[in-house]
């Protein structure tokens, strides 16, 4: 099987994640879409790792996971904090930063 399929699947997932970020308004769902994009990137790394026959791609994917975990922790804490003050997790709510 052509390993390009993995990469194409990765691209599809990435695009879906991007669309989700743009379309959804629930901050938690948006966050999950971001995670989906990161996972798609990881899939591409793993596929490339196999194509190239070395483990560096997997190590990078590992680091991406670590960073994603850290990001989730902080991001969710921020969401909780926003929810406490605004009683809402809609990302359209804080739109004061405008003209």
């Amino acid at each position, binding site marked *: 099987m052509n390993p390009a399929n993995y990469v194409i699947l990765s691209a599809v997932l990435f695009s879906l994640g991007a669309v989700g970020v743009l379309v959804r308004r629930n901050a938690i769902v948006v966050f999950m879409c971001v995670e989906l994009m990161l996972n798609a990137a990881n899939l591409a790394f793993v596929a490339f790792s196999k194509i190239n026959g070395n483990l560096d791609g997997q190590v990078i994917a590992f680091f991406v996971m670590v960073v994603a*975990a850290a990001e989730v922790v902080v991001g969710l804490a921020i969401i909780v904090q926003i929810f406490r003050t605004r009683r809402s997790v809609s990302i359209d709510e804080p739109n004061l930063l405008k003209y």
Partner: protein
Amino acid sequence: MNTAVNQGETIVFWICGFFAVLGALGLIFSKKAVHSALWMALTMISLAVLYVANQAPFLGMVQIVVYTGAVMMLFLFVLMVVGVDSSDSLIETVKGQRIAAILLGLGLAILLIWGIGSSMTNVGPGSLDDANSVDGGNVQGIAHLIFTTYLVPFEVTSALLITAALGAMVLAHRERWLPKPTQSEMSKARFAGAVHPGNLPAPGVYARHNAVDTPALLPDGSVSDISIPGPLKARGDVRPVDHMEMDEITSIDEGSQS
């Protein structure tokens, strides 16, 4: 790599790829955030299988443990805090956002596939057999790399994780503005102007509907609002009281007496 393995990999790819895309679509289109999270978990498990199929068993396990196990649970916890029932209306508020987003997403996907398809036509499947066997296995190989070539980034990520943990604590911490009320103060406050100082009435308990969503009835037969937990009320999950049934029961009761 022999043909059987190759075919097996192909089958695994198509099955898991289907589920991954299905999960992603579900993530996007679910109305409720909890459903989105569950679809997301499906995608991640599919990806874990694909990792294993790509000769990355360590990453596959980590994917399941960290993502499906830890990260998704964290998401669900936060959803609980925020309110499981909070759902987006799917009506778009920003003008043209949805169409533009879908068009751009499609464009991005098409361009990426175009680029990948045109550049990766003659790529062999490749194999990690050699790389995995050098140190005796995939985990050992990754460990070797992390503690030699990628030692410094690895140490930096440890600092990052500690910082993230600290940051989460700081952010989630709620500053107390008033001194914590003592028990006596709380009981005084409860009796000082409260409407209902004692226990609230328990929900109605019937043989058939032994549940908290059934309101208690007052002596005159009307429903007691305060007997139902607030979240259920908010959700509209209060079971209506069937007066016909009640009358029947009463008549049977009376009939048996008479």
